[in-house]
């Protein structure tokens, strides 16, 4: 049974795997993970990090609004964010544009800030 010191070890969590014992009977064995899975997971996390970094650059360059950055940070996409804030995705897409973003009302900004778990000031004050 593979025991890899990956992300599960951090929170002292095991997962259960099924394996055959020496008599050929099935039993369950706790596992700390497997290198193969850790690699696949890391690949996917790297991709998320890359997207966050790319969005951050675009926000600083004035191509996107901070909403885009926090959306990526929360591992969301436009339809998902739209359903969390309760605004149609067509509008959410427009709010990703910096000029549109600057015209947003306090009330709308608060909706976004609540979903991201931050304050309105954090959302509007440039970047993080």
């Amino acid at each position, binding site marked *: 049974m593979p025991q890899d010191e990956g992300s599960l070890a*951090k*929170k002292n*969590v095991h997962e259960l795997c099924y394996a055959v014992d020496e008599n050929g009977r*099935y039993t369950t064995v706790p596992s700390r993970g497997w*290198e193969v899975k850790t690699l*696949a997971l890391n690949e996917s996390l790297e991709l998320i990090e890359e997207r966050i970094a790319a969005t951050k650059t675009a926000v600083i360059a004035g191509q996107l609004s901070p909403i885009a950055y926090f959306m990526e940070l929360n591992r*969301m996409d436009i339809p998902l964010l739209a359903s969390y804030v309760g605004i149609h995705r067509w509008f959410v897409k427009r709010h990703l544009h910096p000029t549109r973003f600057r015209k947003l009302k306090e009330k709308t900004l608060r909706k976004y800030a609540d979903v991201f778990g931050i304050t309105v000031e954090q959302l509007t004050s440039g970047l993080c």
Partner: protein
Amino acid sequence: MDIHFEHRQSAHCENGVISNLLNHRGVHISEPMAFGIGSGLFFVYLPFIKVNFAPGFSYRPMPGNIFKKLAKRLGIGVKHQRFSSPEKAKAVLDEKLAQGIPVGLQVGVYHLTYFPDEYRFHFNAHNLVVYGKEAGEYLISDPVMDYTTRLTEDELQRVRFAKGALPPKGHLYYLERLPTSFDLEKAIKKGIRQTCNDMLAPVPIIGVQAMKWVAKNIRKWPASIGIKKTNHYLGQLVRMQEEIGTGGGGFRFIYAAFLQEAGTLLNNPALIQRSEEMTSIGDAWRDFALDISRIYKNRKSGSDVYEKLSDQLLSLAEREKQFFTRLKKDV
């Protein structure tokens, strides 16, 4: 409100919740048994749906299906409720807990505070059991965790009303009535038969046919979408196959455990023989995952790597095709 609830860890959340809820009522059905009777083994390829920037692969049927089929086949009455109002959802949960009934919940994973950060994705078909409330905190038995945990009212409301694909909408369920007796043999046979039919279905996105389609696409991807994306897609395949919940090898080992248990119970040596074959198929799936991970590790590229992976998946599909054809004749 103190319900004596026995928390037992399981590989997969849905089977674990079923098995634990039934165990609480004195019906002892193991996780593999619940999985087998509920026809949990599956393979589906959804190239037109993008999950986490990769096509959808799944080694299991739609969430909730395993439970639904198991309940039907054993004659267990399960009450399901969904809500549009979070307040009402909370009120019903509190009421059931006050009556001493442990309640199963469908929740979103992303806001679960006790999960490791790496596993917090927007996935909405996780299951857990709430078995009590103490000082404003809910007592949680999450079957994939080693130990029981707690969530505050706000945290639980948040995960119950997570948004996105398959929103839980506060979905809760509990056992209503249990049959006085049930025919386990009939249920097992029905479960096995359906799994065979699913896996051998003449539909390109399901079962063995879907594996073949994926195998064909693996060959094409490097040229059509580039190496980087191909690797990401393959990574998604590995995560679906091996991530928390499958018990390893894309549920193949759980299924082998089920066949062994069923073979012993029904006194059918053919099923025990099939169980051994399933184990070796599971091992082959693990080898497949291992070979995919080598691409990341050695940064090895070149189309022959993908050719080999494609062949490997094709041979797995062929093996499973023969396996399920034989299994179908055994029951």
